[in-house]
């Protein structure tokens, strides 16, 4: 976190989280000038002991940022807090320089933060086309054209436009959820375990889409159970344990870290 020198973000976590590799070299300047989404010392819970404690992460435009860690580490909770689904009891979320902490989900999507939850991420009784239309609810105009674009990006969806989403396979559902999240051309895409429960071939397909999305400009922040796969392509990775920052660094370098592999990945 030293690379941010003095802006205060992540200053608490810098004391506890170990940084792997040389961040100044590893993180290239963003190729796109969209805003960065930063969580600054967020504490989030469901009432009772907080699940996420003073966690700081940042997702830069044009980069894939992965949050990994063991079950129950608070990864998904962190994402929900940043998406406005859960209230953060302390800390801040910043989009660029704007404080967006605890704004409603309806506000956040209008600011360009699109969230794709892990389960129930499509409207089951709506058709695929209607799901995409709802994805563009806040833009209204040009949704037809955007649906065309996304259909060419996700060819699977094109043939099922008139099917209710509940009839889709797990992989197709995820593709639809991604496409729905992209209808608004977000500045930041938050993905909660996009490959959970999918067949290995489908997992690869989803990852290819995720990489293509980040290459197109937005900041992509992904929470993953599949540590090895997500860190391989992550420009920056965070390891969360017990609801706290534990380790961070460029994905591949984290993977090279023997302690991490031994503790959380195995083999």
């Amino acid at each position, binding site marked *: 976190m030293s690379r941010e020198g003095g802006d205060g973000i992540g200053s608490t976590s810098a004391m506890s989280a170990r940084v792997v590799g040389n961040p100044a070299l590893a993180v290239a300047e963003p190729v796109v000038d969209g805003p960065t989404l930063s969580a600054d010392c967020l504490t989030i819970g469901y009432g009772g002991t907080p699940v996420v404690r003073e966690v700081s992460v940042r997702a830069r435009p044009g980069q894939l940022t992965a949050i990994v860690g063991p079950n129950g580490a608070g990864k998904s909770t962190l994402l929900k807090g940043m998406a406005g689904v859960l209230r953060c009891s302390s800390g801040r979320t910043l989009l660029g320089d704007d404080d967006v902490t605890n704004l*409603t989900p309806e506000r956040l999507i209008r600011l360009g933060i699109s969230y794709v939850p892990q389960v129930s991420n499509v409207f089951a009784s709506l058709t695929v086309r209607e799901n995409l239309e709802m994805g563009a609810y806040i833009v209204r105009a040009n949704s037809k054209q955007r649906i065309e674009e996304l259909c060419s990006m996700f060819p699977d969806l094109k043939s099922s436009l008139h099917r209710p989403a509940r009839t889709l396979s797990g992989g197709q559902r995820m593709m639809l959820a991604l496409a729905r999240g992209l209808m608004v051309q977000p500045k930041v895409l938050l993905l909660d375990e996009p490959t959970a429960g999918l067949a290995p071939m489908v997992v690869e397909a989803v990852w290819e889409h995720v990489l293509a999305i980040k290459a197109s400009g937005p900041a992509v922040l992904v929470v993953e159970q599949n540590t090895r796969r997500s860190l391989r392509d992550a420009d920056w990775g965070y390891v969360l344990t017990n609801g706290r920052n534990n380790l961070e660094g460029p994905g591949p370098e984290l993977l090279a870290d023997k302690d991490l592999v031994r503790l959380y990945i195995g083999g």
Partner: protein
Amino acid sequence: MLGIGFGLVTAAIVALSTVALSLQFSVTRTINFAHGELMTVGAYAGYLVAQHTSNLVPQALAAVAAGAVLGWVLNWGLLRPFSRRGASKIVLFVLTIATALIVQNLLQVGFGGSFVDYHYSVGLAHHVGPFLWTTLNIVTMVTAAVILISLHLMIRRTRFGKAQRAVADDLMLARTTGIAAERIISFTWVLDGGIAGLAGMFLALQVGSFTPTLGFGYLLVIFAAAIVGGIGKMYGAMVGSLIIGIVMEVSAIYINPSYKETMAFLVLVVVLLFRPQGIVPALSEG
């Protein structure tokens, strides 16, 4: 045949009210025990306007307006503030019971507890195929049909209708997608109230005289029709209403009119025994 003819009229009224309830329930997930009062205020509004004009259109508009206002107030003034403070669905349900009682008593204060007469100049009866209907019967059925078809088109074709279904499917997902869920829910209550108010007016006209408990007395029939069709399913509600309406009127002729409602619950019990999910299969759920 006469029974089926009356049954269709009753079914039309039940259907209006049940579909409104079903739509409201599927979008807001709140069981509204004050649904009958939406009907009752509609009936009184129609009755009040009828003192000045015999034209049915302004009476109907008043009924719609009264129901819509009560629906909106119920949500905005009561349910929303409570649910924002984290009230459970049970608490909200109890609130609607309280609302039902309060509205009934307010109406009693205003209009007294005795029956008021509310008629529409019946005119001649018309033979339509095997059925014998008054002008009012026909107006009731045509209006119900037009409203139900419009609702279908709204739900399927319009941005608002799709957003309603999205909210019904998954409220939080709808919100993260940017759908203004609170506004959708608010409009749904207004729509529900308006349609129920109109149904209340038609019910009162059909019966000829009524008291502040008009809608409350009908509430269980509405719930029966909604459950028979499958809770929260709009198309199911239409089918359920048709069955309940016809069973009620046919049984009134062959058995005894005072067992009308008992027959409706008999249907409900039978359906719950054999198809607790409602008679309309999940595929057509709306």
